[in-house]
C-alpha cells in the first residue's frame, strides 16, 4: 500500500513529446483511472510508473522512494495487460505463482496465496489448465490472479477489459471494483472507455496529447468539465456543442436563445458581442411540458431526424441549423422524425467555452 507521486514527468521519443509535465499525487488505496483517446499518453505514463519505459525528465515516487532508476521487478508493483500476457506453456497455477517462485517464496506460502486468489476470482477449478483452454474472461481472471498473489503496493492495469465482449466487460468491471474494495490496494487503471472510467474510478485523469486536462472525481468531471474536450469526452451520448454569440448575457443564434443562470451570466460579461461554444448535455434538454423551465429565453429550435426509443428513455437526434444535437427525453415523448420541436435548455447546466482556448467560462 502506497501513494504514487509523479512530479514534472516528461516522456520524449526523439522530437515527439508523448507526456508533458505530468504532475499527480495518487493517494494510498485510491482507484485512479487514466482516460483519453488513443495516443494521449495514458499508457506511456502507466508504463513509466511500471518501469517498462524510461522517463525523460522528472520524478516518480512509490511510497517514499524515488523509483526513476529502479527496475520493474523491484518497484513492488503488479501489472495486468490488455491481451492478458499469460505464459502459454504454463498451467494457470504456474502462471499465478511465477513471480513468487522467482522471488524464492516458500512453497506452502505460494500454495496458500494462489489458492486464496483463485478463490476470490472463482477460478479454483481451472488451476491445472493451460491458458489456451480458457475463455477470454477466464484468462483475464488469471491475469488478475497473477497480480493479486504478489500482494504488491500498486496494481497497474492497462486496458484490461478491452478484449472482452460487452457483457463480460460489464461483469469484470464490477469484479475489479469489488476486488479493489476488498484488497484496498492503490490501483492505476488505463482505459479509453469513459464509461469504465466513470464507473470504476475514485478519481479520473483525463488526458489529451500528452497533457493532463483535468483530474477530479467522476461526478465533478461530468458536471464541471474545465474545457470543451473534457465536456465532450466524458458522457455518452456526448455533450452537444453549438456556436452562439453572447448578447447581454444571453447565448443566442438564429436558432436558439438560452439565458444562463446568474453565475455564468456574470462570467460572460467580458465576452459580450463575442462568439462562444455553447455546451448542453443531452439530459439537460427538455420538451415543452417536460419541465417547469419557461420556454421563453431557453429555447432551441430543431427538426427531429432520428427517434430512438430505448425503453427507459427516448433519444432523439435533431438538427439545429447545420449542426446536430442529441437529447434524452421522457420515454413517452410524442415525437417523430420530421417534427419541428422546441427544446428547452436547463440554464444552470448550460456551459460556455471560449472559442480559442476552449476553456469552460463558467469555471474560470
Amino acid at each position, binding site marked *: 500500500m502506497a501513494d504514487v507521486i509523479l512530479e514534472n514527468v516528461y516522456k520524449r521519443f526523439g522530437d515527439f513529446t508523448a507526456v508533458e509535465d505530468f504532475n499527480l499525487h495518487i493517494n494510498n488505496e485510491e482507484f485512479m483511472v487514466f482516460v483519453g483517446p488513443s495516443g494521449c499518453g495514458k499508457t506511456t505514463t502507466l508504463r513509466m510508473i*511500471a*518501469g*517498462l519505459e524510461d522517463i525523460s525528465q522528472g520524478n516518480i515516487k512509490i511510497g517514499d522512494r524515488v523509483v526513476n532508476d529502479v*527496475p*520493474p*521487478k523491484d518497484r513492488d*508493483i*503488479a*501489472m495486468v*495487460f*490488455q*491481451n492478458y*500476457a*499469460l*505464459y*502459454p*506453456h504454463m498451467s494457470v497455477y504456474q502462471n499465478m505463482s*511465477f*513471480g513468487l517462485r*522467482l*522471488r524464492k517464496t516458500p512453497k506452502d506460502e505460494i500454495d496458500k496465496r494462489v489458492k486464496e486468489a483463485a478463490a476470490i476470482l472463482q477460478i479454483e477449478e481451472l488451476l491445472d489448465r493451460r491458458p*489456451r483452454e480458457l475463455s477470454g474472461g477466464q484468462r483475464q481472471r488469471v491475469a488478475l490472479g*497473477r497480480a493479486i498473489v*504478489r500482494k504488491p503496493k500498486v496494481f497497474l492495469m492497462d486496458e484490461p477489459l478491452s478484449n472482452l465482449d460487452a457483457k463480460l466487460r460489464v461483469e469484470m468491471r464490477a469484479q475489479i471494483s469489488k476486488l479493489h474494495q476488498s484488497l484496498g490496494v492503490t490501483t492505476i487503471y488505463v482505459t479509453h472507455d469513459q464509461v469504465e472510467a466513470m464507473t470504476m474510478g475514485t478519481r479520473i485523469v483525463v488526458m489529451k496529447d500528452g497533457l493532463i486536462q483535468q483530474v477530479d472525481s467522476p461526478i465533478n468531471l461530468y458536471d464541471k468539465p474545465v474545457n470543451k474536450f473534457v465536456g465532450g469526452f466524458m458522457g455518452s451520448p456526448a455533450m452537444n456543442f453549438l456556436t452562439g454569440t453572447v448578447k447581454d448575457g444571453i447565448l443566442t443564434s438564429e436558432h436558439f436563445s438560452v439565458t444562463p443562470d446568474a453565475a455564468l451570466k456574470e462570467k460572460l460579461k467580458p465576452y459580450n458581442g463575442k462568439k462562444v461554444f455553447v455546451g448542453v448535455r443531452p439530459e439537460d434538454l427538455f420538451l415543452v411540458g417536460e419541465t417547469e423551465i419557461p420556454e421563453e429565453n431557453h429555447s432551441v429550435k430543431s427538426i427531429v431526424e432520428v427517434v430512438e426509443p430505448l425503453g427507459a428513455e427516448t433519444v432523439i437526434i435533431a438538427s439545429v441549423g447545420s449542426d446536430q444535437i442529441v437529447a434524452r427525453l421522457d420515454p413517452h415523448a410524442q415525437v417523430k422524425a420530421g417534427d419541428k420541436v422546441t427544446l428547452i435548455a436547463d440554464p444552470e447546466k448550460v456551459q460556455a467555452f471560449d472559442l480559442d482556448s476552449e476553456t469552460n467560462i463558467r469555471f474560470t
Partner: protein
Amino acid sequence: MTKHKLWRFLFYFLITAAAIVFLIPVYLVLITSLKDPGAINLNSTWQLPKVWYWQSFAEAWDLLAPKFVNSLILTVSATLLSAFFGSMNGYILSKWRFPGANIIFPLMLFGMFIPYQSILIPLFKFLRDTGLYGGLPGLILVHVVYGLPITTLIFRNFYAEIPDDMLEAAKVDGASFFGIYSKIIFPLSISGFVVVIIWQFTQVWNEFLFAVVLTKNNSQPITVALAQLAGGEAVKWNLPMAGAILTALPTLLVYIVLGRYFIRGLLAGSIKG
C-alpha cells in the same frame, strides 16, 4: 468419366510419374549395394540382383565406422552450438532492440550468401595460425559460424511472434534477462529448435568441401571417407553404394523422428495458439 474425374486421374498419373523419376537413383543405389561385386556390369544395371549379397554393408561399415563417429561428434556439437547461439541472437535482435541492431542483423544475414569457396584460403590460414587446422574443433567452429546467419534468422522471425507484453509481464514478475530466456523464450521455442536442428544437422552432416580441406586423416568426417571409397581405380560399386546408404541414414532418421515438428515449426505463427 466426368471431366472432374479425368483431371483427377491425370493429376495422379503425373505425380506418380514424377515420383518414379525421382526414385530412380535410390533404386539404383539400393540394388547395386545388394549385388555381388562380380555380378555388377552395365548390361544388368537395371536388373534386380540374382543373389542378394548383404556383405557390402558390413564391409563398408568397417571402413566408415571411425569416420561415422567423427561425423557424429562434429554434427551434434556444431548443430547444438549454432542452434543455441542463433536462439540467443534471435532473442536479442527481436526483443532487446539496441542501437545498431538494424545494421548488424542484415550484415549477419549477408553471411548466408558468401560462397564457401571464396573464403576457403583465408579460412585455412586462420585455422592454421590459431592451431585449429586439421582437427574436429576447427571444423566445428567453422560450421557454427557459417550456421549462425540462418539460425539467427529463423529464431528472430520465430520470436517476433511472441508478444512483447508477455516478456514485460515476466519482467514485472521479477525475471532477469537470462531468466526470461530460460523460463519463457526457450520453452516456447521448441518447434523453432526442431526446425533449426534438422536444418543444421543435414547441412553439417552432408558438407564435404570444408571437411576435405580443413581436416586431416583421423579427424575426417564420413563424407570424405565416402568419397575415398569411390575414389580408386577399378571401383567395386557395391561398396560405395552401401556406404552411401549408411551415410544417408542419420539425416533420414532425424527427419523421420522430428519431421512432424519440422512442418509445425515452419507453420508457426500462421495458426494462432
